[in-house]
């Protein structure tokens, strides 16, 4: 599924992407740990960065949820909800997500 839209009109949710996901992780873990956690999750998911689709972003997020670090699990679940919400709302509003 290509990430062709960047924002749900009128509702202000940006398209979830790798940069924003790593930034969110960094707010919880610090930049270095966040980069490592993201790279590790991407590797376990079999995804080679850059992560460019919602599907692959979701695969990495699911690996984050399986992490042994509580804060990484939180960030992963947060990301999964945002991906699901963006996708469902975009579809409901008749856009491609």
């Amino acid at each position, binding site marked *: 599924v290509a990430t062709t839209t960047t924002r749900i009109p009128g*509702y*202000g*949710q940006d398209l979830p992407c790798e940069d924003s996901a790593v930034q*969110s992780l960094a*707010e*919880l873990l610090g930049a270095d740990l966040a980069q490592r956690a993201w790279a590790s999750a991407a590797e376990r998911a079999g995804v080679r960065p850059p992560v460019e689709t919602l599907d692959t972003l979701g695969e990495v997020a699911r690996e984050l*949820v399986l992490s042994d*670090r*509580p*804060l*990484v*699990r*939180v*960030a*992963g*679940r*947060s*990301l*999964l*909800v*945002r991906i*699901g*919400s963006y*996708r*469902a*709302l975009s*579809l*409901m509003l008749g856009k491609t997500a």
Partner: protein
Amino acid sequence: MKLNGIETWADPIKDTARLSEIGELGLTELTDDPELQALAADAAVAFNLPIGVVSIVLDESQYFIARTGVDGWVGGADGTPVEWSFCRNVVRSASDFVVEDATVHPVMKDSPLVKLEGLACYAGTPMVSSNGHVLGSFCVKGKEVRSFSEDEMVLLREYAARAVRLIEDRRRQVA
């Protein structure tokens, strides 16, 4: 919190100690727990409202670990971005948050939960862990304008306390 001698406000939603406890309690994986499900459903019936939710407020999303009456795009996503949620206000204030008519509420009127889902009334109360962290909100909501009595808020707080007991008991059993 002070930064360079200036008092600043730290957003409780981003509090890493709170978020760590959420992760440690397994609240990032727990879905469709039957006892929590029953609690959410029971609360909706008790308040004569269509929706009851045990909502865990994460750093950027709210995650519904138990719910009744939540369908459509919200149900499919298991939650919403935190900026759209009623429940974030419960965590930020660590107190009850009540909305009688969301369509005119200054904070909530533009949320897609109001504009698209048609939510009108909301009552949520903090779910506070034994460590003192607000994990999220136990809440009921509906699509009609409605007020909530003090007796009803007492009942809602009892539901929230029961939800926390279930969450913590379950974690103790797993550990």
